[in-house]
């Protein structure tokens, strides 16, 4: 089934809040092999000028992907998740995601285009605290493989 190109330009209502806690940041840092103590040691994080332990550079994807579900599960979109491959991912950090943050994510569909029988869907998720402080702009392109 083709992806519904009419969804390009749509912005979904904010999802969350997602609570960021220190154990989640430590587990993520360990899984990607980070040795940087700013993710695990509150004293080290303070010494570096942060309020508490901070997220590794790619942690934002864990929140952005939860926000993306609004599109993937939108019956109007026609996306078969079993055919989805992650094509591209980019983060622009406005300030590090920090333990104790309550994060809201606002998902927009930037573009939907066909290429070689596949649909390329580019989404942008703006992550901010519940107080409105910008945290991260996460841009993702998924490839929805066409039928054989």
């Amino acid at each position, binding site marked *: 089934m083709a992806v519904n190109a009419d969804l390009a330009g749509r912005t979904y209502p904010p999802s969350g809040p997602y609570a960021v806690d220190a154990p989640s940041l430590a587990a993520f840092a360990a899984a990607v092999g*980070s040795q*940087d103590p700013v993710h695990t040691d509150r004293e080290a994080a303070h010494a570096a000028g942060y309020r508490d332990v901070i997220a590794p*550079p790619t942690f934002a994807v864990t929140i952005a992907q939860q926000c993306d579900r609004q599109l993937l599960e939108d019956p109007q979109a026609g996306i078969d998740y079993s055919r989805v491959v992650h094509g591209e*991912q*980019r983060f622009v950090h406005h300030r590090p995601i920090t333990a104790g943050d309550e994060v809201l994510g606002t998902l927009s569909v930037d573009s939907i285009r066909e290429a070689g029988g596949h649909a390329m869907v580019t989404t942008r998720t703006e992550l901010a605290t519940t107080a409105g402080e910008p945290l991260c702009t996460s841009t993702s392109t998924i490839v929805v493989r066409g039928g054989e």
Partner: protein
Amino acid sequence: MAVRTLAETSVGETLGPVRVPVARETLVAYADASGDQNPIHQDESFARSVGLPDVIAHGMWTLGAAGSVVEEWAGDGGRVVEFGTRFTKPVVVPRSGGQVEVTGTVKALDEQTRRATVELTATSGGDRVLGRCTAVVQLD
């Protein structure tokens, strides 16, 4: 760790190579930490059933591992202010484990903003697994 300064950084400077081992257990830990439990990253028979050669790493694990290399160079993970890639090939993780090799080159320095643009290369089994992978690092 000391934060890298503009004065000690130059265009053309290289990072690595850093060899990052990846075991099946690494992928289970990443699945648990990230919430991405797609069985192609954990279950060999499932991966083969959908036409893959073996279990493959999450693309985002690979990018995360490259991010850890950049953090180490930057001296503070919070200094990696922009980071992104295209996923070009999967990292295959056989039962005996796999490996990703990460290298980087400083492509540009902005003296006004004190930011370095670093281009990264990640290879596994002879394949380039990340494409156009760049990080922007806020220097001191």
